[in-house]
């Protein structure tokens, strides 16, 4: 395949999939928050962490897409193009996993916190560890781009 096209697919993956993952996480956690907010609005300031961590996934995608875009002019060989494609794929897959984790753990966290606020500190671990998955992907994608 043409190196230019391959790397452009990488850019598309890097921005597209993280945005979808972020959207899913925000949609699921945001609606759950809205429901709990009618019962216990004082908890919302704590629970907003689920939505913001979901949103951060899109920003990771943005960073990788942006870095790939700035390298586009350097990508001439098939090998460099493959690296661009794979780094896009890495951030896509890891943010999708993180999005799934945040959606599941986030809604459970929101529901559980409404019932027993003191469980928040233990339950929040699920959400933040899911989010850490995306950071691991980000680091690796980042190092890969550095080699182009």
């Amino acid at each position, binding site marked *: 395949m043409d190196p230019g096209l391959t790397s452009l697919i990488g850019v598309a993956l890097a921005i597209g999939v993280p945005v979808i993952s972020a959207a899913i996480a925000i949609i699921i956690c945001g609606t759950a928050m809205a429901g709990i907010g009618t019962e216990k609005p004082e908890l919302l300031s704590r629970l907003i962490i689920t939505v913001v961590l979901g949103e951060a996934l899109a920003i990771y995608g*943005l960073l990788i897409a942006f870095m790939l875009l700035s390298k586009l002019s350097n990508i001439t060989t098939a090998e460099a193009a493959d690296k661009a494609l794979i780094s896009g794929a890495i951030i896509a897959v890891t943010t999708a996993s993180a999005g799934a984790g945040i959606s599941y753990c986030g809604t459970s966290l929101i529901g559980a916190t409404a019932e027993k606020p003191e469980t928040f500190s233990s339950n*929040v671990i699920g959400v933040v560890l899911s989010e850490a998955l995306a950071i691991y992907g980000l680091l690796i994608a*980042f190092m890969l781009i550095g080699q182009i």
Partner: protein
Amino acid sequence: MKSIKNLPLITRANAAMVTSFIFPIGNRLTLSSYALVTMRKINVIVFEDRIHAVLTSLGEAAIAQIIDLRERTERWPEVLAPYVFSMTREKEEKSEEPEVVASHELSEGEKQIMQAEEKLARTARTVYFEAWVPDEHVKQAVDLINKSALGQCVVTDQLPAEGEKAPILLKPVPSFLAAFERLVYAFGYPSSGDINPVIILAFTFPILFGIMFADVGQGLLFVAIGILLTLAKRKVRMDKVGDIIKYLFIGSEMFILLGISATFFGFVFGEFFGPSGLIHPISLGQIGPFRIGGFEPTQEPMEMLRFAILVGALHLALGLILRFVNEIRHRHYRLAPVPIFWLWLLFGGLEMWASYGGISNISKWFSVGIFMMMALIMLPLTLILVFTGLAEGFTEGVGFSVEVFAETLSHTMSYGRLMALGLIHSAMNYLFLVLGGVEHGNFPLGSIPIIAVGTMLVLIIEGLVVFVHTLRLHWVEWFSKFHSGEGIAFKPFQLTK
């Protein structure tokens, strides 16, 4: 109703079987961040016809003391520094019909006493209840109960049993740290006897935020917003503003601290509204392979990653030191060496990484660096296993040392987000710099509106994301070392007048 609303510090009576009441905690407020005030449990048996009088006097004593405490807390920042603004309270509005208000207050108080009475254990003639009282005020409390019960009572006091969770009486922090206090308590209160991390967090939180949000221009903007909000806060009635505005007001002093830190790291990484080239990075020095500043993160991301990991290791080390202090305070002398070995492991791993490289050079760890690895990684892990095993049993020790190994690795790596979010911050700003046509520190006139729009976006979206990530680094990576968040706050039984 108004008069009840105006007393925010007085919480509702939380009278289960255990009720409690408060007396002032010493005459001087100190900067000590310790949450430790020894609590005693008193057991009271009163004749039934006196219980009403006892509860009334306990509840009223608490009100007088809390108002006194609150006034001293609010005067405190003025003593600390002239530029810290204290929250001024509006004068209470005079009600037009004082009789109505007075009778309402009276009935409200009666209701609370009735509710508390319902929850007490009783026989045909006597009532029994337990109360938590700060150690130094047990005598006062017992005297008060004796007096109001006209001597028709039996009172004993005891220290909490081993393993029993006593409520904690938190020493008030200066009101300009109120936002940090909320961040800590949203996670959970410190357990009895643990260090209260609010004041330490007020130092580390802005530092981590500033590394991710490094920018001279936007940092100064943050400071300006913070100062404006602090000034506005004195003129605005807090109960008349919306939720979001209220949070901004509470966090106004925090904005100033975050802004100062962001400005500082802006100079270190050379950013003025993004990597515009106006400010050159200032190097603060070098520790081995770790450069502190003096490079542009977007140009040398690996340097930034090293710096982020170094900051992470130092932050975790602070958490481990606090864990050591906590263990000593709890007199867990057998477990106290564990955080020290953990520090050894943390910095040992860092040293290995610095001298032999990371995952890609892992074979070197096992060939050239095998003896160093034994001393720096294997030995502390074994010692952790042995010490935990001796204190809590062998299986516990194995589980814990595996956990220590995994945590050290994953938590340190998690600080890589300092680099990631710092780069995202520069990248987002760079986007608007390119759109505005800024080159080599020259800002053409036409670029200003574009940069203004970009700055708005960055301040709101990026600011929120960076804030939550800073919070998460503290809640998960840092607190898991020493702050369990399992404490129970001391909510004294009191009448809302």
